[in-house]
């Protein structure tokens, strides 16, 4: 049987054109495998071969996505591939986004199986994991051999039209797709078996991994609260009326920073909640019920605190990932530290 045809996408760096200074290069096609493509070719053995490689600069792709995709699809289509593979991009953000985007476009427009690989924290992973198989790789090219092995294995399965297994089995980033299956034993038995193992101190495998919440040491007490600069932060989604930054009502992808200069009270006419996970009517009627601005202003005037920081930070905690929440806090905390805020009152709903 003739070898299956594969086209491979890489960026300017892996094509050895150059680094950041060459990230603007436009799409080009080269016959045969290039760079990591050689390793893929070796693992494909008799079953498949990389007939051509498309290359594009990471900046060019991300800044001209529609044109880049169109140019690349034309080149890829001309090579008549049976399968398309992109990357692996490891933790390179623009490269990961490019790999996900071009793989998705090829899948949609050329109707052939596609896959890519990147580190799970690559922004391209969250963006494309639902639609495209993304093999989970290490966060740098140190993991190339491992990535190639897993990507090739999945590629060959796809070429054979085999059933693709679960993310744990195949090594791709979980797509959030639930597949109903029948367990051999009923849940109550599995739960009791697991509990018995736990009680005996024996190893057990959870059916549902919990996110890892890390711990920090408590900060020393504020020495003189009447002189302290305090900031307000909330996950209750309090925003200026109209939600100008369009913070999502669930799974927020951003936080807002809002100016409290001259504001002594949050009213129905000026503030509301964007949070979709609790009954908003009370917060919409009076947002001080979630973000105690009126009280902090009173305390500021009465000298109970030194001052209230001019801005408050807000996001919607509903379904927002730990990862995102951490990232938001790491971001705005830089400002809080820079502005000598000594303490934060965080309210959640």
């Amino acid at each position: 049987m003739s070898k299956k045809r594969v086209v491979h996408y890489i960026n300017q760096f892996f094509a050895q054109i150059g680094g950041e200074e060459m990230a603007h290069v436009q799409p080009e096609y080269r016959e045969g495998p290039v760079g990591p493509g050689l390793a893929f070719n070796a693992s494909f053995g008799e079953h498949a071969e990389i007939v051509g490689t498309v290359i594009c600069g990471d900046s060019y792709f991300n800044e001209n996505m529609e044109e880049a995709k169109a140019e690349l699809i034309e080149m890829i289509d001309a090579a008549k591939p049976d399968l398309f593979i992109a990357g692996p991009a490891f933790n390179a953000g623009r490269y990961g986004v490019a790999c996900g985007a071009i793989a998705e476009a090829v899948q949609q427009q050329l109707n052939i199986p596609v896959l890519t690989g990147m580190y799970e924290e690559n922004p391209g992973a969250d963006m494309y994991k639902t639609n495209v198989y993304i093999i989970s790789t290490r966060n740098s090219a140190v993991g190339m051999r491992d990535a190639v092995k897993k990507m090739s294995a999945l590629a060959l399965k796809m070429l054979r039209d085999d059933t693709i297994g679960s993310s744990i089995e195949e090594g791709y980033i979980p797509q959030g797709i639930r597949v109903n299956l029948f367990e051999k034993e009923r849940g109550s038995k599995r739960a009791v078996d697991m509990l018995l193992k736990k009680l005996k101190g024996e190893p057990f495998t959870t059916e549902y991994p919990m996110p890892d919440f890390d711990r920090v040491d408590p900060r020393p007490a504020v020495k003189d609260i009447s002189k302290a600069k305090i900031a307000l932060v909330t996950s209750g989604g309090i925003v200026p009326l109209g939600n100008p930054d369009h913070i999502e009502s669930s799974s927020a992808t951003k936080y807002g920073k809002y100016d409290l200069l001259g504001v002594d009270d949050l009213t129905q006419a000026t503030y509301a909640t964007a949070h979709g996970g609790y009954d908003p009517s009370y917060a919409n009627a009076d947002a001080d019920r979630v973000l105690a601005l009126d009280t902090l202003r009173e305390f500021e005037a009465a000298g109970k605190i030194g001052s209230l920081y001019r801005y408050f930070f807000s996001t919607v905690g509903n379904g927002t990932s730990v990862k995102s929440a951490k990232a938001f806090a790491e971001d705005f905390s830089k400002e809080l530290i820079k502005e000598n805020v000594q303490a934060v009152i965080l309210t959640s709903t």
Partner: protein
Amino acid sequence: MVHMCTIVPISMTVGANRIVPTVAIPFPLGNPELSGEEEKTLRRGLVERALRALATEVDGQTVFEN
């Protein structure tokens, strides 16, 4: 940092070290059953507790019930 929230076990799980339990999920620092002034008094009490929490040394996770 002091975390003012209603579901204290969640705050404990995520690792807040100073926790002030609040009234209810949709109105942590309020109570629509009360009059405007009573609500403000309630809110002042809770925020004062939060300030006290910030000014108190703790050596682990601590819930400030009063």
